[in-house]
């Protein structure tokens, strides 16, 4: 499946660096500008983290932004089974990362875009891969070029 047709999850750090236009992570802002080009799921843990960072009004704007392409967005407020989180914890993940991993597995998402280079690097056999914002954009561009 091409990256443009694949459901992905953007880690909170990608949303936050992007909205901040963090100068050392400009790929994150560029990636947010390309949101109309791909499919994004936003799981509960990421939503809660964003809600803790954004004001009520900013959060409303965030949802409005997602709703501009409703067929390419899925918001999930569902919790995951604690047993699945526990499974990741037993493999060495911290609770928070285990929760994100469990969300991805339940949602059937095979790609997480994250600026945390160490995200679960010590865990083998994950059901998803992790790319930085820059690497994701490179892949997106490569696919666009190949199609032309």
């Amino acid at each position, binding site marked *: 499946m091409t990256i443009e047709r694949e459901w992905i999850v953007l880690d*909170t*750090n990608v949303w*936050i*660096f*992007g*909205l*901040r*236009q*963090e100068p*050392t*992570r400009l790929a994150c*802002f560029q990636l*947010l*500008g390309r*949101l*109309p080009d791909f499919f994004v799921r936003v799981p*509960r*843990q990421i939503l*809660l*983290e964003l809600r*803790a*960072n*954004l*004001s009520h*009004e*900013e959060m409303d*704007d*965030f949802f*409005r*932004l997602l709703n*501009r*392409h409703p067929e390419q967005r899925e918001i999930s407020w569902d*919790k995951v089974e*604690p047993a699945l*989180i526990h499974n990741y914890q037993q493999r060495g993940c*911290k*609770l*928070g*990362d*285990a*929760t*994100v991993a469990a969300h991805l597995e339940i949602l059937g998402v095979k790609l997480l875009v994250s*600026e*945390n280079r160490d995200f679960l690097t010590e865990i083998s056999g994950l059901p998803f891969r992790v790319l930085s914002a820059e690497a994701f954009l490179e892949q997106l561009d490569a696919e666009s070029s190949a199609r032309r």
Partner: protein
Amino acid sequence: MSVSINELAESIVALAPQEQEELIEKVAALNFQRGLTALSRKYRDRLAQEGKLQQPAAEILAELAKLREEIAAHDYRA
């Protein structure tokens, strides 16, 4: 606005169907970019007021990692 909505609509319906589709896509894309820029500006302005806009990336990542643990611990407390 120099062109009325009615005149604008007349101009649009005079376009070929494919051009109309391209136009609608273009308007949607511009609306999205404006929304993103506006949200980013609003967020950055607030961070600047709070003296947090210049926070180093490593510090932001550390705070987000801490927040992740706290939220998960609260959401899945026994």
